[in-house]
């Protein structure tokens, strides 16, 4: 523990150079702009910025991507509060109380609370990252093919279950589609080329960056142009303040700590993401708050809980990303791809190969958090101006970047076609309420699942027994079975009947 904190302190000192501060300043500001504009998500921002980091030094590249991620998740609160449209899906819960506060003429104070919540949530997550990541990496060293297979299945099932909303089946289908995309190209054991459909460009598989830029970039452009234009709530109150009151933060201290922990834990679950972190924190705050009837009508506590929860997911999602190479959220999936591009191999070996890297990431998160706090409390007017940029001006620029970004990685026009295909399919799937996170997770985990299953079966000479008898495997199997069962309507109904009966008995 002390060793971890010492490593963390050393990483902060190493990062405190003028050049690093300069990169933190521009990347975080860009992230906040990206997040605050409806239609530009954190995933899209990180994916597009990845294409601009190819020529940067390793640590600088990771630093600007982390700053973009933190900034974009925070920036989503601006449009959630002022437009009632979350800039990113992560801020959907923020708009529930942020927009009513803005309508009451307290937009500035709502943004100040969102800033404080985001900064404190990220800090809680950073502490948990520093404390939990090293032991998790150590546990992951015991993982063999059998455990990695179930980990991949677990990721897809949980992500599908939690992001599928009322229809977890659509989440599972999205995950399966992602896994199927990952089956294209040369497989990892015998180098046999599968499903290339006669295109030699597909021999290496579908690259993640073009797929992500399409599914999150082009699909967003189409979605923004499909929706009706939002209306901006101007700041119009004379008693509105732009700094959070210390008394409010002290009053909500338990909400902040609880939301930070919930957000981080949600972040650790593969492929779930910031929106679920925000909703889970919001629901927990609503259950325990003495002013719960104010929730949804402009509750400051509700706003704080949502923003703390979604921001805490950022460090949380990096815990499995760094230690297991399994992303905790969609932007973390892009970050994994960026880490590989810059020569870092995330996974169980990270604490052995690069023992200080996790602390460097934590230090980068601290710098990004400081930046969002400074920008958030000082540049409120500028963010309102940014929200006034017409979508007709912004979207063609975004799409031009979507075209050139994936091309820059491999210099193949084929990847532009991949981006377009994923954009069109992603748009249709989104409109049909298929979540995108399991799809992305499937593309990332497909190779791991495929190799682990076949390698495991080879090791056991075709026997399935070790897949169910080893303790960690058995744990994953139980969780997966319970998750799928809870997603089935008849099981859910029976469970609800049982709990209500038990409650009735305990009352009597």
């Amino acid at each position, binding site marked *: 523990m002390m060793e971890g904190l010492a490593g963390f302190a050393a990483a902060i000192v190493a990062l405190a150079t003028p050049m690093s501060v300069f990169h933190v300043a521009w990347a975080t500001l860009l992230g906040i702009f990206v997040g605050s504009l409806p239609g530009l998500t954190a995933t899209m921002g990180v994916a597009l910025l990845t294409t601009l980091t190819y020529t940067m030094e390793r640590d600088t590249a990771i630093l600007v991507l982390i700053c973009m991620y933190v900034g974009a998740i925070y920036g989503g609160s601006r449009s959630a509060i002022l437009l009632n449209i979350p800039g990113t899906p992560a801020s959907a819960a923020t708009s529930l109380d942020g927009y009513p506060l803005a309508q009451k003429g307290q937009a500035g104070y709502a943004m100040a609370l969102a800033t404080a919540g985001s900064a404190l949530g990220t800090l809680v997550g950073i502490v948990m990252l520093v404390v939990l990541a090293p032991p998790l990496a150590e546990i992951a060293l015991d993982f063999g093919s059998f455990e990695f297979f179930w980990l991949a299945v677990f990721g897809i099932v949980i992500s599908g279950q939690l992001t599928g909303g009322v229809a977890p089946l659509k989440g599972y289908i999205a995950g399966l589609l992602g896994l199927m995309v990952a089956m294209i190209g040369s497989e990892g054991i*015998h180098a046999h080329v599968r499903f290339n459909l006669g295109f030699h460009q597909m021999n290496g598989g579908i690259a993640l960056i073009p797929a992500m830029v399409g599914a999150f970039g082009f699909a967003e452009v189409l979605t923004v142009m499909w*929706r009706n234009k939002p209306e901006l709530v101007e700041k119009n109150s004379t008693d509105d303040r732009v700094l959070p009151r210390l008394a409010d933060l002290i009053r909500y201290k338990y909400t902040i700590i609880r939301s930070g922990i919930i957000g981080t834990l949600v972040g650790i679950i593969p492929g779930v993401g910031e929106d679920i972190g925000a909703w889970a924190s919001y629901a927990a705050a609503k259950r325990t708050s003495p002013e719960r009837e104010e929730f949804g009508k402009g509750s400051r506590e509700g706003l704080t809980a949502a923003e703390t929860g979604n921001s805490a997911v950022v460090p949380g999602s990096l815990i499995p990303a760094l230690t297991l190479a399994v992303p905790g959220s969609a932007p973390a999936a892009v970050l994994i791809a960026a880490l590989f591009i810059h020569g870092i191999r995330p996974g169980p070996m990270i604490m052995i190969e690069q023992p200080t890297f996790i602390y460097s990431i934590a230090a980068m998160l601290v710098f990004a958090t400081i930046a969002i706090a400074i920008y958030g409390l000082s540049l409120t007017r500028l963010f309102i101006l940014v929200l006034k940029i017409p979508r007709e001006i912004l979207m063609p620029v975004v799409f031009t970047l979507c075209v050139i970004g994936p091309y820059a990685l491999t210099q193949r026009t084929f990847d532009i076609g991949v981006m377009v295909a994923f954009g069109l399919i992603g748009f249709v799937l989104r409109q049909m309420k298929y979540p995108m996170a399991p799809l992305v997770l499937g593309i990332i985990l497909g190779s791991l699942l495929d190799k682990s299953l076949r390698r495991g*079966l080879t090791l056991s000479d075709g026997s399935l027994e070790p897949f169910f008898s080893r303790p960690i495997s058995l744990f994953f199997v139980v969780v997966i079975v319970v998750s799928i069962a809870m997603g089935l309507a008849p099981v859910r109904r029976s469970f609800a009947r049982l709990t209500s009966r038990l409650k009735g008995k305990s009352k009597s």
Partner: protein
Amino acid sequence: MRFNSATADRATAAVFFALGAAMAWGGYVMDRLEIRQIHPASIPGLVPMILGAALMLCAILLARSAAATPRDTEDDDSGSLQDFTFTAIWSCVFALVLVGRIPFAAGAAIYIAGFAGWFLVPAAPIGSGRMKTALFVMLFGAVTAGAISALFRYGFLVRLP
């Protein structure tokens, strides 16, 4: 047909079933590499077969549950079809037709100016207002395309298409 409806779910279930069947069949007939004497449990088609079967099962469940799935009454698929159609077609024309055939900067300038002009020029006041807006979008397209191209060409040393 609405995107988020029981009919749409049944139609996609049919597509997914066909896709699953194709992948399962593709995995089944895939080369088993006997000539390399690999372990039979590590054949390349194993996981595609499983995934294909799983997708077929999910497709059946999707079709069966389509009518009972709860749906938002305030769905956001009631947007502007005209704006969407133009965006989709014009963006595809840029990405799949213009890029690679004419210099990237020129293609991007045409795309950006065309996109912004399509929406902004008709919305401007008739007469000199439209002329000014048209000039603005052309200038905006040229400057933005030039800046993006220069950034990638000289900043990141990318050989543009």
